[in-house]
């Protein structure tokens, strides 16, 4: 496909593994960076903490953001990303178990580009990941840097 990376923010190792598997099975071979809590996600995006060495010019094509996260929850991460000039235009897709109305409303209000609910049925999940990858890595034109 291309050299764009995907940032997966996921604390559940099962979900992490299944998501990566889904990418793999859908032949999405781009680099998937995985962080396990909200703080690490912010460190990654702002090249801080353990990710100081990361090239800030190389931003992920899309951030797949879970809402229920240790330390800093997903909505707060989204708020900070949108508040910062460097990441204001970053594509963020909420990928979560919750279908609570409140989460949907808050997610969109804070500027999520999309909101996807993880289905229990893995077959459907595979389909979701396939479309996600195709859309954000191929179809979508990222904002110019």
């Amino acid at each position, binding site marked *: 496909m291309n050299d764009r990376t995907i940032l997966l923010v996921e604390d*559940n190792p*099962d*979900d992490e593994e*299944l998501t990566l*598997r889904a990418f793999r099975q859908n032949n999405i071979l781009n680099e998937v960076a995985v962080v396990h809590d909200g703080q690490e996600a912010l460190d990654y995006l702002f090249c801080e903490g353990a990710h100081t060495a990361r090239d800030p010019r190389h931003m992920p094509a899309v951030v797949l953001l879970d809402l229920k996260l240790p330390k800093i929850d997903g909505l707060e991460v989204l708020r900070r990303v949108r508040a910062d000039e460097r990441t204001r235009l970053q594509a963020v897709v909420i990928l*979560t*178990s919750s279908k609570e109305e409140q989460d949907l409303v808050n997610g969109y209000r804070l500027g999520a580009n999309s909101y996807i609910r*993880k289905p*229990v049925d*893995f077959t459907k999940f595979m389909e979701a990941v396939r479309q996600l990858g195709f859309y954000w890595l191929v179809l979508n034109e990222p904002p110019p840097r």
Partner: protein
Amino acid sequence: MTATAASPLDAFCRSFSRAASVLLMLGGGFILLGWAFNLAVLKSIVPGYATAKPNAAVAFVMAGVALQLLMARATGSTARGLIVVLSVFIALIGAATLAQYVLGVNPGIDRLLFPGSPDNPGSPYPGRMSPYTATSFVFVGAALMQFNTEIQKHARACAVLVGLFGLLGLVSHLYSVAPEGLAAYTQMALPTAALLLLFSLGALCAFPERGVAALVISRGGAGAVARYLLPAAILVPVLFGWLRLYGQQHGLYGTEFGLVLMAVSASAVLTGLVYWSAGKIGRGEAEQNRLAAALRESENMFRNAFESSPDAIVGVNRDGRIVRVNQQAERIFGYSRGDLIGAPVEMLIPMRLTERHAQNRQDYMSHPHMRPMGSGLELSARRKDGTEFPVDVMLGPVETNSGPLVLSTIRDITERKRAEAEIRQLNAELENRVVQRTAELEAANKELEAFSYSVSHDLRAPLRSIDGFGQALLDDCASRLDDNGRHYLQRIRGSTQHMGQLIDDLLKLSRVARAEIHREPVDLTQMAQTVIAGLRGTEPGRQVEFQAQDGMTADGDPRLLPIVLENLFSNAWKFTSRAEQARIEMASFANDAGGRAYYVRDNGVGFDMAYVDKLFGAFQRLHAPADFPGTGIGLATVKRIVHRHGGRVWAEGAVGKGATFYFTL
């Protein structure tokens, strides 16, 4: 006897008196005119009769003026002085004339006026009034003087004497009696007699509130008797005397028999009058007794009511002293009647308020009227032991012979206050409890929301893992599994997916339970068509005939009603899947309660009415999952939404003959 102030008789008396005074002046004036122009008619009415004398005429004029002044109730010293001068002069005229008779002198005072005008021929003393007249004028003067100084009792006696002299003169003329002895000197003239009588009556009527006049004009039996008996007592003897004389003079009977006849007749008439009067007085007394009895009865009733009143009643006089109390007053204040009577009422007022109460009491006394005391204030009273208690007080003034009295009706409201306080406290407690319960409920709701959120998130994650890794196993290790192994894995995945569905439905149900209802007009026909279109989209291959009544509207929540229709229609859709010609319809009708009921009917597999009660319970299913998939939560959700709208839901059906689900909103 006290006369009623403004009785018409009273006014009549005064008017009569005024007229009499004017007539006296006119009469005197005419007599003087008669002398001036020698007119016998004016001097003696009947020519040849004794003449009224000029001095008498002057005295009558003065008496008229004096009476007029008295009538005006003049209080000025000039008027008073004038009356004194006039009375003294009148009395002097009488006294001087009498002196002439007694001393046998004639200094010429009789002819002081009109010395040339002739008197009747043969008059022993021309121009001199009769001794009776002279005596009368002494009394006229005395009467006027005393009326002036308000020694009215004697004044009235004098006036009565004057009247008697007048009557004497009149009757003498009536009987044509030639007086003998002293009377022979000179006879009282007819006008003089008439004017003397007029003066007597006028003077007696001048003060109708007292004396004979008061008696005559008084209401009730005494006045009535006096009004009939008095003229009768005067006229009857005169009349019978005249009759006797008349008969005697015409030779009907002799002197002795005439006397007998007169005595008996007069006795008979007077007896009749006395009998009549006694009867009248008797009736008056009977009436009085009746009134007295009624008064006693009323007094008894009042006393009983007063004494047995559940409220304390305290009568207070103008000076603030207690003059009357009832039993309840003794009871609630703790004093004996003896302690209370005569004591200042402030004894019953809390110390700190006595001063203000005394002030308020005086203000009230200046405008006494029935009213509650200290309206809007919390009133307290003081017992003998100094303790205070809350009271309601009603004040009402009563006029008594010994001055105004204020009756205070005092109610001990300790019990009422206690009950009120209790109610207030209970209310406050209740309010507290409501606040507390509301807070608890809110907390419970919050907890439930947190729980739902947690379920939505955390319960589904492991399911995804099970399903996902199950699939991974099938994908990656298929070659190492036999058919059985693969079948089991499929069963595991089926179950996890079903559980995922269950969780979703449960969350939906709990959301419905918590959601607030926002009613607005909703187009149910449109909504039904949208739902059916969605179902057709999921299974485009199925042929289902659908019919929805046109223009069905309802007043309901536009977010929740679609859930009702989705559940009902998806059930109908599901349970008609084996029907040869599936048919679903929705319509509405007017129900008994006056609202509208709606129904969704299908020709699917139906259900056994024996299990109708289980239909709407959560997780209750009437079909095997293998036949018809489902979580058993859909109808529970429908029921919850309908109930949240205050409506009712019920179902009818038979196995193999379809089902109908009704609901109201």
